[in-house]
C-alpha cells in the first residue's frame, strides 16, 4: 500500500467542490482511501483519523488545499493526484485573488438593491459572515452548520433587533418570493405560508401542496436547531409574525421535530394570538397540547399538507386502505421464508422519523441511527438489525462527503448491502429533487436497485422496493420522469413518504402473519 499527501498553499476551494472531487476519485479502481479538503482544523483531524498524519498536513492552514491518496501502488496515487488537479482546473473552481467581490461589504456597495444573503461557509466562520450581512441590512439564509447554539442565538437576536429575517444556521431549504433556495424544490406561488425547522419537512409539504394544484406564499426555513431552548425559537416566532402580516398568506403551516419545552411554549403562546389559521406538525408532541393553542393538529407531513390544502379549498385524496392492504398481501405472498424485515435507506432526516411513526403501529419498534427511542439505536448505521431505518444524511455519512441528496454513492452501496442480507423483505427509499441536488437521483441508483432485486430473486425470494419522490414537475429532474424510471424497474412508487412507509409496514405485518 502506498500513500501520497500533497499540500497546495494558498489555493482556496469551497468544500462542496472538494467533496465532489473526493467522491469522483473514490470510484477509481485501486484507490483505497482518498480525501481532498482544505486544511481546517476539523479536516486535519479527519486526515489523521484516516491514517494520513504527516508534518505537511499538520502545518497546513485553512487556505491551503490538501490531497491525500492511498492506493495499491505509487502510479495509482500519482494518477489520482493528477486527476484531482485536472478536475479542479476543468471546473475553473479556483478562487483567484482578483475577484469582483471579496466580501459582503463590497458586494452590497456594488449593488445597493441586495436584500438577501446566502451563507454557506465552514461553520466556524459562519457567525462572522452572518453578522456582517445583517449589519449590511441583508436578510440571511445560513446553510452552514456546526454553529454553537449560543452563537446562533446571538445572530438571531441581532436579526430581530434589525427587523431582518434570519433563516438558519443549518437551514437546507427555503422558498422566498417563489424562488427555491439551497436544496429545495421549485413550487408555484399560492396561499399557504410555511415556517419549518425541518428542511425536508418544508420541502415535502411544499411539494404536496404544489402537486395538488395550490402553492406556497413563503417557505421560511428556521434551521434545524431553532426550537432548542438555547435558541428559543426566535426565527419561528418572527416567521409567524411575518406570515401573519403577509397579505398573500391565508394559511400558516409550522413544521418541526419535537421542540424543546420552553421554545414550544413560546411558539404555542404566539400561535394562540395569531389571527390566521395555523396547522402545526411538531412530530412527537401531544395532540392535546397543540390543540390548546387553537391550532389544527397534523400528525405527519402528509396530514399537514392535506389540512392546509383543505383550508385552501382543495381536497387531497387519501389512499384507499383496502387497496393498500391488497397490495401489501400480494407482495408478502411472493417473499421467501427468510425474508422478514423492512430496511429503510433515507436522504431526508424528517422522513426517517415520519416513516418510523407510520410503521410503528403495524410492526412495533424500529432500529435506526436516529431512533424514536434511544434503546433502539443501531450500533453501526451500516449494520441493520431486524426492522431498521437509516438516515444517510447523518454525520457518520457526511463527515467528508456531500449530503446524500447530492452524493448518492453511500446509499447505493447500502442498497446492495441490504439485499445481501437474507432477512431483508422490503426496501423503503426516498428521492429528493430540486435545482441544487443530484441531477438524476433515481438514475444514479437504479442499477443498484435492479441488482438488489436480482440478488434476492437468485436466492429464491422477492424483494419489494417501495419509494416516494419528493419533487415537482418544475424541478429540473421532473417528478414524473423519476417516478417512471422507478416503476419501469419494478419499484412501487407511492404518492408521498408517509404512504410509502405505511405500505412497507403493512407488507411486513402481512408477512409476519404468514410466517
Amino acid at each position, binding site marked *: 500500500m502506498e500513500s501520497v499527501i500533497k499540500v497546495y498553499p494558498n489555493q*482556496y476551494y*469551497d*468544500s*462542496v467542490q472538494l467533496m465532489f472531487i473526493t467522491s469522483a476519485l473514490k470510484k477509481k479502481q485501486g484507490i483505497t482511501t482518498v480525501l481532498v479538503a482544505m486544511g*481546517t482544523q476539523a479536516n486535519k483531524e479527519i486526515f489523521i483519523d484516516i491514517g494520513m498524519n504527516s508534518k505537511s498536513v499538520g502545518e497546513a*492552514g*485553512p*487556505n491551503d488545499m490538501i490531497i491525500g491518496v492511498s492506493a495499491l501502488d505509487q502510479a495509482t496515487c500519482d494518477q489520482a493526484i493528477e486527476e484531482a488537479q485536472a478536475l479542479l482546473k476543468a471546473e475553473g473552481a479556483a*478562487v*483567484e485573488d482578483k*475577484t*469582483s*467581490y*471579496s*466580501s*459582503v*461589504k463590497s*458586494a452590497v456597495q*456594488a*449593488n445597493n*438593491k*441586495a*436584500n*438577501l*444573503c*446566502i*451563507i*454557506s*461557509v*465552514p461553520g466556524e*466562520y459562519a457567525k*462572522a*459572515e452572518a453578522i456582517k*450581512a445583517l449589519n449590511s441590512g*441583508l*436578510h440571511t439564509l445560513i*446553510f*452552514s452548520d456546526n454553529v454553537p447554539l449560543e452563537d446562533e442565538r446571538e445572530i438571531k437576536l441581532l436579526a*430581530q433587533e*434589525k*427587523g*431582518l*429575517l434570519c433563516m438558519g444556521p443549518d437551514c437546507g431549504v427555503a422558498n*422566498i*418570493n*417563489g*424562488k*427555491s*433556495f*439551497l436544496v429545495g424544490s*421549485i413550487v408555484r406561488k399560492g396561499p399557504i405560508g410555511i415556517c419549518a425547522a425541518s428542511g425536508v419537512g418544508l420541502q415535502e409539504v411544499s411539494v404536496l401542496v404544489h402537486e395538488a394544484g395550490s402553492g406556497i*406564499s*413563503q417557505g421560511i426555513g428556521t434551521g434545524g436547531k431553532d426550537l432548542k431552548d438555547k435558541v428559543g425559537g426566535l426565527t419561528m416566532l*418572527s416567521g409567524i*409574525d*411575518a406570515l401573519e*402580516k*403577509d397579505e398573500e398568506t391565508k394559511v400558516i403551516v409550522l413544521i418541526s421535530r419535537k421542540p424543546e419545552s420552553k421554545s414550544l411554549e413560546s411558539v404555542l403562546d404566539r400561535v394562540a394570538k395569531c389571527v390566521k389559521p395555523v396547522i402545526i406538525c411538531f412530530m412527537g408532541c401531544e395532540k392535546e397540547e397543540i390543540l390548546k393553542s387553537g391550532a389544527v393538529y397534523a400528525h405527519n407531513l402528509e396530514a399537514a399538507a392535506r389540512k392546509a390544502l383543505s383550508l385552501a379549498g382543495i381536497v387531497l385524496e387519501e389512499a384507499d386502505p383496502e387497496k393498500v392492504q391488497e397490495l401489501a398481501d400480494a407482495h408478502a405472498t411472493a417473499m421467501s421464508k427468510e425474508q422478514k424485515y423492512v430496511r429503510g435507506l433515507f436522504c431526508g432526516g424528517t422522513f426517517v422519523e415520519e416513516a418510523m411513526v407510520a410503521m410503528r403501529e403495524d410492526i412495533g419498534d424500529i432500529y435506526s441511527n436516529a431512533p424514536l427511542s434511544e434503546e433502539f439505536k443501531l450500533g453501526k448505521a451500516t449494520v441493520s438489525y431486524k426492522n431498521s431505518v437509516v438516515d444517510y444524511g447523518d454525520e457518520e455519512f457526511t463527515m467528508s462527503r456531500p449530503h446524500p441528496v447530492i452524493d448518492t454513492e453511500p446509499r447505493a452501496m447500502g442498497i446492495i448491502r441490504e439485499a445481501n442480507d437474507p432477512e431483508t423483505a422490503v426496501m423503503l427509499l426516498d428521492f429528493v429533487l430540486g*435545482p*441544487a441536488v443530484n441531477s438524476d437521483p433515481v438514475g444514479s441508483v437504479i442499477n443498484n436497485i435492479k441488482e438488489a432485486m436480482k440478488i434476492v430473486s437468485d436466492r429464491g425470494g422477492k424483494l419489494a422496493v417501495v419509494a416516494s419522490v419528493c419533487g415537482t414537475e418544475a424541478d429540473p429532474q421532473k417528478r414524473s420522469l423519476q417516478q417512471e424510471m422507478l416503476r419501469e424497474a419494478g419499484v412501487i412508487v407511492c404518492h408521498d413518504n408517509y404512504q410509502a412507509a405505511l405500505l412497507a409496514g403493512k407488507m411486513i405485518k402481512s408477512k409476519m402473519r404468514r410466517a
Partner: protein
Amino acid sequence: MQNKIDELFKSELVVVNIGPKMFGDAVRKQGAEVIQVDWKPLAGGDKEMIAILEALGGI
C-alpha cells in the same frame, strides 16, 4: 420592525451568495439576480488576526 421582512416579500430578490457557486447558480436560473462573493478565510484563517481586522472595521 417587521416591515423589513414584509418589504422583502414584496421586493425583487437580489441575492448575495457567499460560498459554493452552485447555490447561487440555482437561484440565478430561477430568474433572480445573484452577486457571488468568492469567500476564503481571512488572514489565513488566523482567528486572532481576523478579530483584529474586524475590530479595525476594514472588512
